């Protein structure tokens, strides 16, 4: 599983995303630039210029025609993937920490940062999927998070709910049509920030990563914690792999938080856990700083990680990865085959 190194960013990576076909990777960094890369060979196919500050977040719509970004320049922007053309800029009073499209691409949400005089909010816009169309300024929804600031958020299956993860370790479920708070629960330890929230392919459940050194698998409708993955390092990101029942966790102590810094002590590894059995099954090293984000190929063929070290590492899974099975999984597969 020889990784491909994507070097082009000059500062720490903040988020990486595959497009739905898995042939393109989008990356954003504190260096203000959005990059697009071919996932199979790491060739850079384009950049998107315009942001005036660190970028925190990126997402691509289900048809790979629109790209959304957000950052420290207090703007959320929409781009045409193919041409790199800036289609729309929405301005806010504070940074945009997370953007995400709904599964049909018709809605786009943004999470705004909290700052003196401004509470954190989740804003939703209806999106016209046609790159030539005018995009609206009107917010379809605006949720104010007055309890604890939201750090991450996304749309559930059928956009029934908006699920948000918060600075205090809680997860909230909102009615995505009315913005009403339906339910809130403490998924992670008190005051341990939720750093990532990624969906299963059908968006009936998701995984959260937290500074409390755990990742949790949570059901979208009940917010029940289905699985828990304890590690020994603060986590920045967690992803669910399709095809195989694994989760991939990334994190690591930032250099300024450890007295003696070395790659070993920092624990800069991607950790693979079995999703159902909650056991660690492997680690992948390589980064020289914390992993800020891990993303999985939509068809489960590989994954990539964006590091504090400024690199994106792209891994293509090899045969042993797909062949590996627990005995009880083998039994199940056999029983299925005999039906």
């Amino acid at each position, binding site marked *: 599983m020889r990784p491909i190194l994507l070097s082009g960013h000059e500062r720490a990576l903040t988020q990486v995303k595959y497009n*739905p076909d898995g042939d393109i990777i989008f990356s954003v960094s504190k260096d203000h630039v959005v990059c697009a890369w071919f996932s199979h060979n790491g060739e850079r196919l384009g950049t998107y210029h315009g942001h005036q500050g660190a970028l925190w977040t990126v997402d691509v719509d289900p048809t790979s025609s629109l790209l959304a970004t957000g950052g420290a320049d207090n703007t959320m922007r929409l781009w045409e993937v193919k041409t790199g053309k800036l289609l729309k800029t929405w301005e806010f009073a504070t940074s945009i920490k997370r953007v995400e499209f709904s599964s049909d691409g018709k809605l786009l949400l943004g999470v705004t940062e909290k700052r003196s005089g401004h509470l954190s909010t989740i804003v939703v816009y209806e999106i016209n999927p046609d790159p030539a169309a005018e995009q609206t300024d009107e917010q379809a929804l605006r949720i104010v998070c007055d309890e604890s600031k939201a750090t991450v958020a996304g749309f559930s*299956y*059928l956009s029934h709910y908006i699920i948000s993860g918060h600075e205090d370790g809680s997860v909230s479920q909102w009615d995505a049509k009315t913005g009403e708070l339906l339910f809130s629960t403490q998924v992670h330890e008190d005051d341990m920030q939720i750093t990532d929230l990624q969906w299963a392919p*059908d*968006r009936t459940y998701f995984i959260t990563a937290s500074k409390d050194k755990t990742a949790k698998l949570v059901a979208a409708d009940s917010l029940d914690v*289905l699985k828990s993955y304890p590690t020994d390092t603060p986590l920045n990101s967690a992803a669910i792999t399709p095809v195989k029942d694994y989760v991939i966790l990334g994190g690591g102590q930032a250099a300024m938080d450890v007295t003696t810094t070395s790659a070993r002590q920092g624990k800069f590894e991607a950790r693979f856990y079995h999703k159902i059995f909650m056991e*660690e099954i492997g680690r992948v090293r390589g980064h020289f700083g914390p992993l800020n984000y891990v993303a999985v190929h939509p068809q489960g063929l590989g994954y990539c990680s964006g590091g504090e070290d400024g690199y994106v590492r792209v891994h293509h899974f090899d045969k042993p990865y797909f062949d590996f099975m627990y*005995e*009880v999984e083998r039994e199940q597969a056999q029983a299925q085959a005999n039906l």
Partner: protein
Amino acid sequence: QDLAKKNTANKAVVDARRRMLQEWLAWRESMRQMLEEEGAEIELNAGRVKQDTDDEVEEVE
């Protein structure tokens, strides 16, 4: 937990895994049925939007 990490998983561990797998598969099946009842096409297609080429067809017309 230490026990579970050993490759020499004893019967109790294997039984626990078997139970976890069955519970998981049952829950997944209930979710699949729920999505079917709700007519969630994209979700049932593993999150992928079936690319319709309607626009191009319309242009031809």
